[in-house]
Each structure stands twice: as C-alpha cells, then as structure tokens.
C-alpha cells in the first residue's frame, strides 16, 4: 500500500513492534513484563511480535532466571538500531515532503 521508495520499514508498520523498538533503543535491557506493562498488551500478542523482531535480527533475546522464575530480557541489536533510525528518518521525510 505504501510507496516502496519512501524508505519506511515494513516491520515497523505495526504499533507494538514500533513500541518495543522505541523502548529498547533508550533502555539497555528490558524484560518481558516491563515491556508488557509499558505497552499495555497481552502476553501472546507481545510474544508474537518479539519473535518477529528477533527473526529480523533487530533484537537479541537473553533467557535467564531469577530464582526459579524465568526472566527473559531483550536488547536491541546494531542492525535493529540502524533500521529504527532509518525508519524515523523516513517518517520525517514523509512529513517534510507533504508540507
């Protein structure tokens, strides 16, 4: 639907994926529950989008434990940070272009 030459990243078409990236670029490492709380989404929904981001190589997953509970944290990769800033630049250009 969107013009392919405007540089917008398809992966970030989704609000939740965009939100996850926004959080991860300003926080070193964030766990699943904090992401869930911050974005106000359900477990399953968030998990799907995290898998998608991981498959694209935009985030790295660390599986750990606090006591017996699993504590999975997420971190943005260099590729991810690059893709995200390119996406923001594209958004800015869209806004400038139409004005």
């Amino acid at each position, binding site marked *: 639907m969107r*013009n392919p030459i405007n540089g917008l990243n398809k992966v970030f078409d989704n609000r939740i994926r965009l*939100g996850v990236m*926004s*959080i991860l670029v300003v926080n070193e490492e964030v766990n699943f529950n904090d992401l869930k709380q*911050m*974005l106000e989404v359900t477990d399953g929904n968030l998990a799907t989008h995290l898998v998608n981001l991981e498959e694209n190589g935009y985030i790295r997953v660390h599986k750990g434990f606090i006591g017996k509970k699993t504590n999975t944290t997420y971190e943005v990769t260099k590729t991810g940070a690059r893709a995200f800033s390119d996406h923001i630049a594209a958004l800015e250009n869209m*806004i400038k272009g139409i004005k």
Partner: protein
Amino acid sequence: MNDNQPAADSLKDIQDIRRIMERSSRFISLSGLSGIAAGVCALVACWFASQQITDYYKQYDMAGHFDGPAFQRLKLNLLVLAAAVLSIALVASFYFTWRRARQKNLPVWDLTSRKLAWNMIVPLASGGLFILAMLQYNEWRFVAPGCLIFYGLALVNGSKYTLSDIRYLGYLEIILGLVCTQFTGYGLYFWAVGVGVLHVVYGVGMWWRYEREDSRE
C-alpha cells in the same frame, strides 16, 4: 485530502515513538507535593533538634564534659528524632507521588521507578555508611556537609531517570554541603536550608510547573 494521510500517519508514529521513549526512560510521576512534605518534615525536625541541643548546652555549663549521661541522652534523642522524621518524610513523599501516578494512570513501581531508586540508592547508601563510620570515630563535624553532598550526588545521578529539574536541586545541595564544610558549627542551619527550605521551594516550583493545571479540574 488523501494526499495528507501518509504525513498524518507519520506524524502520529513519530509522536508515539517520542512518547514511549520518554515514558520508558523517565519516572515522570514525581510530585512537587512530595518535596514540600519532605521539606516541612525536615524543618520541624530541625526546630526540635535545635531545642534539644540548646537544652543540652544549658546543662553542659554545669557538667562541663561531653561524655556524661546527658550527652548520651542527647545523642539518642537526636538519632530517634532523625529516624522518626525520615520515616514520616518518606511515607509522605511516597503518598503524594503514588497519588500523582494514579492521577496519570501510570504504575508507581515499574522499570523507570526501579531505575530511579537504584541510581539514588547507590550514592545515598555509600554516603550513609561513610557518615556512620565518621560517627564511629566521633567525627561529627562533617556529618551535615557529608549528608548534603551525598544527597546532592544522589539527586544529580537520579535526575537522568526522572524530571530533569532534580539535577539543579542536586547541584544546590552539593554547593551548600561544600560551603558547610567551612562552617562546621552551623551544620543544623545548613541542613535546615538544604533539606528543608530547598525542598519546599523546589516542590512548589515543580508543582506550579507540572501539576497546577491537573489539579484545577
């Protein structure tokens, strides 16, 4: 009309990104009323402490030494007073900040408040232990300046994770603490200014700037 749609979408995306970045990196529910409450508690405590110290010095003229039971009593009284005021001030500040978070529909205990707490606890706890060690060797002269300096450092450090205005309060506390090192007999007055007056002034300022609008509705 439709030509503007992509731009409007882009603008909304950018605004969302900005909002989420802000919201996930800073604890923004800190209430100015918390500062006012803590400051008032501190001022009341300073008044009580100065009463106690004045009373002690009246007796000191007669006894003539610092290691008598009257001095032990004074030390105990001041420690109890300090602990009591600290608890009341903490409870009061937490209450107002909790209330503010609820008003804004945000959680009180989340990623941002945990970061803020941790980044303040490190300088505060090291300062606290350092001051206790000084007291262990009866080195009381640098207690007030030490408290102010370490508290200032904690604020400067914590300001990265909450409303950035806190940083300047931190600088003021540090400067006050350093000046206080040259006037060691007046520690209580410096404390009254640093922990009492500055908190109230800052609290009023922050309330005026961030909360006045919300409280009208």
